[in-house]
């Protein structure tokens, strides 16, 4: 399904590009921005409909998630190495069925945090509870609810994928052979499962990684840089799997990554840390209030004319005009967009493209973390 998915994506873009001159009401999105649910539902007929539906699944309103039961609680977790606090009093909760991104610049303590949650690294202070079980005092009970991929999943290369999964199946109580075949089917490895892992591509190893993480029906998946080393198609595939799992099985997912655009597409909430401390916690793509002003750029053949037209209209703020490129940037309510387009048409201005400008997660991230300085 994923191969097709990426083809659809390309097809959409081409369709939009070629029909842009006449499709004046087509509102395309700039690549890095998150889908605007409202815009999409009001544009059901346009070519990006399919894409729009895809995007909707990422926009799980965080308010719903907050009502779901807490699966994972991180409480004042601190890791001290030498005199330095690698992670310093970090706390957050994760609820059922939500995908949470753990963001931070290099050296912020993402990996350390994740490894403390799964018990690979001992925490100096604080505690982590998984479904009420402390990972410190009740490791075996707590860890059985966690499925994890820590960096690139490594397997025994001289064994087949199936034999590798059998290893983990024997280590977890109540996992049957049927369950192995179930997860193998879920990640689409049926044809390769009896081949030696040595012969697997990185993408296949990632899939096997997801399979081993899901094997024991965990309540939460914890993934450390799961898209590391994957090609764009692999990343997209991974993202689709994760979203599907979160939606269908209600599994909470915690992902650490520094690929911001990736996180933006995947997560319903991000937790941003820097130098081991919590910087901010944000929901992504929550419902947008109608009265809110949006910023839109128009690409037209005659920017000067467009500018004149816009100046005559009320409630529209002209932000910038680039005459040479034929780009006009305005701020207005969504309700005014059709009227503006109508006026521009009446003024014989040809519109090639209408794009919504959203400040991307990347920009906000840099704001939160104060630029890309290496800690």
């Amino acid at each position, binding site marked *: 399904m994923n191969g097709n998915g990426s083809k659809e994506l390309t097809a959409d873009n081409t369709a939009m590009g070629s029909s842009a001159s006449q499709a004046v009401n087509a509102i395309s999105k700039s690549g890095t921005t998150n889908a605007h649910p409202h815009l999409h539902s009001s544009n059901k007929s346009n070519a990006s409909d399919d894409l729009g539906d895809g995007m909707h699944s990422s926009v799980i309103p965080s308010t719903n998630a907050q009502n779901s039961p807490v699966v994972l609680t991180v409480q004042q977790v601190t890791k001290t190495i030498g005199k330095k606090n690698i992670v310093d009093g970090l706390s957050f909760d994760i609820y059922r069925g939500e995908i949470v991104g753990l963001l931070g610049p290099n050296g912020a303590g993402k990996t350390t945090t994740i*490894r403390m949650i799964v018990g690979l690294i*001992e925490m100096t202070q604080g505690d982590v509870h998984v479904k009420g079980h402390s990972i410190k005092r009740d490791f075996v009970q707590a*860890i059985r609810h966690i499925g*994890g991929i820590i*960096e690139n999943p490594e397997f025994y290369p001289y064994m087949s994928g199936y034999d590798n999964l059998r*290893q983990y199946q*024997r*280590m977890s109580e109540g996992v049957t052979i049927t369950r192995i075949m179930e997860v193998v089917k879920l990640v689409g490895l049926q044809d390769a499962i009896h081949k030696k892992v040595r012969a697997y591509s990185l993408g296949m190893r990632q899939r096997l990684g997801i399979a*081993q993480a899901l094997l024991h029906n965990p309540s939460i998946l914890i993934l450390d840089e799961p898209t590391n080393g994957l090609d764009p198609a692999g990343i997209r595939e991974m993202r689709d799997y994760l979203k599907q799992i979160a939606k269908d099985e209600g599994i909470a997912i915690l992902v650490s990554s520094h690929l911001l655009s990736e996180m933006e597409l995947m997560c319903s909430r991000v937790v941003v840390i820097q130098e081991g401390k919590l910087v901010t916690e944000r929901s992504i793509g929550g419902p947008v209030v109608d009265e809110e002003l949006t910023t839109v750029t128009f690409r037209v053949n005659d920017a000067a004319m467009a500018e004149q037209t816009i100046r005559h209209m009320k409630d529209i703020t002209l932000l910038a005009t680039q005459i040479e490129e034929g780009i006009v940037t305005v701020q207005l309510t969504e309700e005014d967009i059709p009227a503006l387009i109508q006026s521009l048409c009446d003024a014989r201005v040809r519109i090639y493209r209408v794009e919504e400008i959203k400040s991307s997660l990347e920009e906000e991230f840099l704001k939160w973390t104060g630029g890309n300085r290496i800690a």
Partner: protein
Amino acid sequence: MHSFGNLVWNEWLKMFKKRSFFLPYVLLAGMVLFMAFMLYKFSGGSSTGYEFAQLAVTTKGMGQMLTLLAIVVTAGAVAKEHSMGTVKLLLIRAQSRTKILASKYVAILIYILTLAAFMFVVSVLTGQITFGMESGTVAIGDVLREAINNLVYTIVYVTLTFMVGILTKSTGPAIGIGMFMVIMESMAVQLLARYSWSKYLLFTNVDLSMYSGGGSSPIPGMSLTFSIIVLAVYLLLFLTAGFVTFKKRDVA
């Protein structure tokens, strides 16, 4: 208990599925056969079957080869999990680290046991076929005792290697240190024999075959029981160091 059995089975499969699994068996059998051939050819077959078997399995004979092969197998048990990165997926299962490590140790012990048993059988059979069945001064019980002495010898060094493998997380040093100890052993015993405290050393006690000939103990005050106690203390020490380190280690 059932789950521990599963863990041991897992560890066994990790060794078994490797192509190199049968290599130690082949090498041991090959060496026993080669030695039988050489002896038969050049000493004219003067010894009996059991005499040959005893020579083959004893530490001073070819038993030490078994120890060296076992060290190579053991060194990778924990270290390879680290170097391959598989330890991350291994330790996030609903099993305690102590249990996981114990299953590794048990699997290794089973492997060594099969190696020793295999060598015993091959040696006895080769001896019987090449040098005849007539009994001399050596009976099958003596061969068995030497094989067991060598098994103890091997277990001590394997446990040491196991510990080094856990502490250093790499196969190279574990093999190196393990083999170095085996090779240094006789020299250390000779050099230090004049000090009475050397009777508490691992080296001086590790080869229990020194008591089997009824000969005098190398240092006054040593006996079979004494040596067994000293070895047990060392084993406990190695295992404690290994298990505590493994349990506390931050896997980064």
